[in-house]
């Protein structure tokens, strides 16, 4: 029997309020193995930790039980303390008497009795705890950033700046993401391209950065410090190394009617194309679905005009396999499809556009060369209505595509749009219909007030009920003004819908590959909502930008930098200590039946024939399992699949769990 010390925390009154901590300490002190038991107001404080350290030395403790808050909170703290006193950190158990006891129960008697039982269970378990030593695994000093928007770019630049190689995988032919499509940025109204392009160029020029554009992640295996990733490089039918980006092929290409993604389909491009002038890499790509040569085998014009000889119709997609120490998800977002919102007549009228389409209309390289025009007749709109929260903050989505959350960026960009309209075209009437105007952020509210006060934008609290295209080409907007409590009819020339944003569709399959968790909206879940906002619960996977939740550019850049600093912190280590709570196979009992390997999600179990011959029994070669401790993540699926009980899990062994069961049920 081990010599156990029990330390009961009051947590101020958090525990002591509904649990009689003195009685708990006193009762547990009578348990057969317990040689010392005490209580203290804050066990996690330095003084509290010192009580534990001193007791370990004075009473020669061989196991420590701390009855306190959840182990998720302070297990690491107490392990450190125990370790500092010379005891193996895994000879500690935490009995959760706060979150799962004192905070739940109002009755002092019941709470105290339960705390004692939980303490007993921890004592029973710690009796059987094995001193574990964390193994080490080397760190591959290379990072992968998935997504080449501003989030990915910033993360990559920061990691590269710290001296580590980093690869960007971008599924489009160019990096840049949504920010390339935006005209001006709030709240300073500086040009989006002007601030983004230098960063894109820097990515291309930085020796530490490799850009895999037009590529997607195919498979991820491994674990923190040692991921192995397969990247599928789609065939662009242009040799990236030869192409000079001169653009001749894109001009000569006879296929001219492909909807241009960069302009959200508001204009057309050629089958051979460079997405936009500042694309990085500045390399053409042939649209394999539209190129005549690739679809019908004829044409070949681009090849003849390409002086660099870069066109390669035979190019195949390739798989690049690379090892990484850390992976950053920066998969970004898209506006939701709003075809379902019939009331806004989006599908019926060309002059009902989304905000991102409106950005394209305002931007100089857009379909209207930056002139504010109606897409139907090219006329300059005199009255523009902006509708907020289209698909955002929708409860019980009636349209099947709405989101419960606030998309966060719409209020600000709408203020920007309204302001730009009024500035460039002062004769335009601008209405904004909103539920709330949300402007938290430095200089944000000032910006919004400028739109109202300085630029005379009509902000009306209320939702638009219907947009009806009229015979004269105008749009009749029916809305309610909630403040004056009246129905409004605004005859508009253009309606701009602030569509909600949602995570990019590629995020869900990626999360599965990364074994990273997601919330119900397919945003990546962070390890802790407040304290670890840029880390995924899956070790070695970090989050950058909107893939974690809606955010604007400054926030995205801040988070991208934070993710980068976490990655740098990880890559700066030569070795990582592994979770020692991993599976272990007892060869003497192993049947070699492969049940465990069948259920292992990590492929951590391998088999080998081993010689167990003994003098009396003659030759005996058996197939037995062994666990790669660096690969095993400690889920324990194998332990139950194993009929003989040869497979056990350190830290959560069968005997430990049964001891807890026994202690609880007695």
């Amino acid at each position, binding site marked *: 029997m081990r010599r156990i010390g029990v330390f009961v925390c009051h947590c101020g009154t958090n525990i002591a309020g509904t649990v009689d901590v003195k009685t708990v300490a006193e009762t547990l002190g009578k348990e057969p193995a317990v040689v010392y038991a005490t209580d203290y107001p804050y066990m996690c404080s330095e003084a509290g930790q010192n009580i534990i350290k001193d007791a370990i030395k004075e009473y020669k403790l061989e196991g420590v039980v701390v009855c306190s808050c959840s182990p*998720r909170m302070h297990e690491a703290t107490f392990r450190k303390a125990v370790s500092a006193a010379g005891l193996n950190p895994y000879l500690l158990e935490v009995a959760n008497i706060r979150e799962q006891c004192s905070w739940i129960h109002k009755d002092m008697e*019941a709470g105290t009795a339960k705390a004692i039982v*939980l303490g007993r269970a921890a004592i029973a378990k710690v009796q059987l705890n094995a001193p574990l030593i964390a193994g080490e695994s080397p760190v591959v000093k290379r990072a992968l950033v998935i997504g080449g928007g501003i989030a990915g770019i910033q993360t990559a630049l920061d990691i590269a700046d710290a001296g580590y190689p980093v690869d960007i995988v971008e599924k489009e032919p160019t990096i840049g993401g949504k920010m390339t499509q935006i005209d001006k940025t709030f709240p300073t109204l500086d040009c989006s391209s002007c601030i983004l392009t230098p960063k894109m160029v820097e990515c291309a020029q930085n020796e530490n950065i490799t850009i895999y554009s037009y590529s997607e992640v195919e498979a991820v295996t491994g674990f923190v410090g040692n991921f192995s990733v397969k990247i599928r490089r789609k065939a662009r039918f242009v040799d990236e190394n030869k192409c000079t980006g001169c653009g001749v092929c894109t001009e000569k290409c006879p296929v001219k009617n492909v909807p241009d993604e960069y302009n959200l389909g508001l204009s057309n491009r050629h089958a051979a194309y460079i997405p936009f002038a500042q694309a990085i890499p500045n390399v053409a790509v042939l649209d394999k679905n539209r190129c005549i040569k690739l679809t019908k085998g004829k044409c070949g014009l681009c090849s003849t005009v390409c002086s660099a000889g870069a066109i390669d119709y035979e190019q195949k997609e390739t798989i690049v396999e690379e090892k990484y120490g850390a992976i950053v998800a920066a998969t970004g977002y898209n506006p939701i499809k709003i075809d379902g919102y019939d009331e806004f007549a989006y599908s019926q009228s060309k002059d009902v556009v989304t905000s991102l389409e409106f950005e394209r209309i305002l931007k100089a390289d857009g379909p209207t060369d930056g002139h504010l025009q109606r897409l139907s007749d090219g006329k300059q709109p005199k009255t523009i209505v902006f509708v907020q929260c289209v698909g955002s903050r929708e409860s019980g989505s009636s349209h099947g595509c709405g989101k419960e959350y606030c998309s966060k960026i719409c209020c600000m960009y709408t203020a920007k749009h309204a302001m730009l309209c009024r500035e460039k075209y002062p004769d335009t009437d601008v209405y904004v219909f909103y539920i709330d105007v949300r402007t938290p952020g430095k200089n944000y509210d000032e910006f919004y007030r400028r739109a109202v006060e300085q630029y005379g934008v009509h902000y009306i609290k209320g939702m638009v009920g219907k947009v009806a295209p009229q015979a004269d080409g105008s749009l009749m907007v029916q809305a309610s003004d909630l403040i004056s409590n009246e129905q409004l009819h605004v005859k508009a020339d253009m309606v701009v819908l602030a569509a909600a944003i949602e995570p990019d569709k590629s995020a869900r399959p990626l999360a599965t590959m990364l074994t990273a968790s997601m919330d119900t909206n397919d945003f990546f879940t962070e390890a802790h909502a407040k304290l670890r906002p840029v880390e995924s619960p899956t070790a070695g996977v970090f989050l950058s930008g909107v893939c974690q939740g809606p955010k604007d550019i400054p926030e995205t850049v801040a988070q991208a930098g934070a993710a980068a600093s976490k990655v740098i912190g990880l890559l700066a280590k030569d070795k990582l200590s592994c979770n020692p709570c991993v599976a272990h196979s007892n060869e003497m009992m192993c049947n070699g039946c492969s049940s465990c390997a069948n259920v292992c999600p990590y492929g951590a179990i391998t088999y080998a024939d081993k010689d167990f011959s003994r003098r009396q029994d003659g030759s005996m070669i058996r197939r037995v399992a062994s666990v790669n401790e660096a690969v095993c993540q400690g889920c324990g*699926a194998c332990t139950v699949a194993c009929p003989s009980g040869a497979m056990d899990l350190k830290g959560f062994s069968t005997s430990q769990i049964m001891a807890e*069961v026994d202690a609880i049920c007695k």
Partner: protein
Amino acid sequence: MQVNNEFRPKIVAFCCNWCSYAGADLAGTNRANYPADVKIIRVPCSCRVNPMFILRAFQRGADGVILCGCHPGDCHYTTGNYYARRRMTMLFSMLSYLGIEKGRTRVEWVSAAEGAKFAATMNEFVETITALGENKRLEDLRCKK
């Protein structure tokens, strides 16, 4: 267990570390309420729970056992709860076949964000077990006081 002539069930709840245990913590943080009869055992994943543990709990005097894990599809280890789901289905099947009252065992998927669900589930489970009364069919008389 009889306390002042009133039956108080003994209930063991196995909770996976990543979702349900955190959900149970959240229930506490939110000051939710459920009976003290429920005692939680932390396991890394629902797939760590051997049917043997559940039988053991009944042997030692538990009146009800509940297993909580991440929602299918959300397992921290990707697939653990899928295996747990099959194993528990089969265990329930066998217990029912042996004539053990239905409802003594339960599986519930509780995420880290579902503190309220955790508390509600526990309240409901305690109610069910209290109605079923003492576990007589899977008891070990030697373990009774």
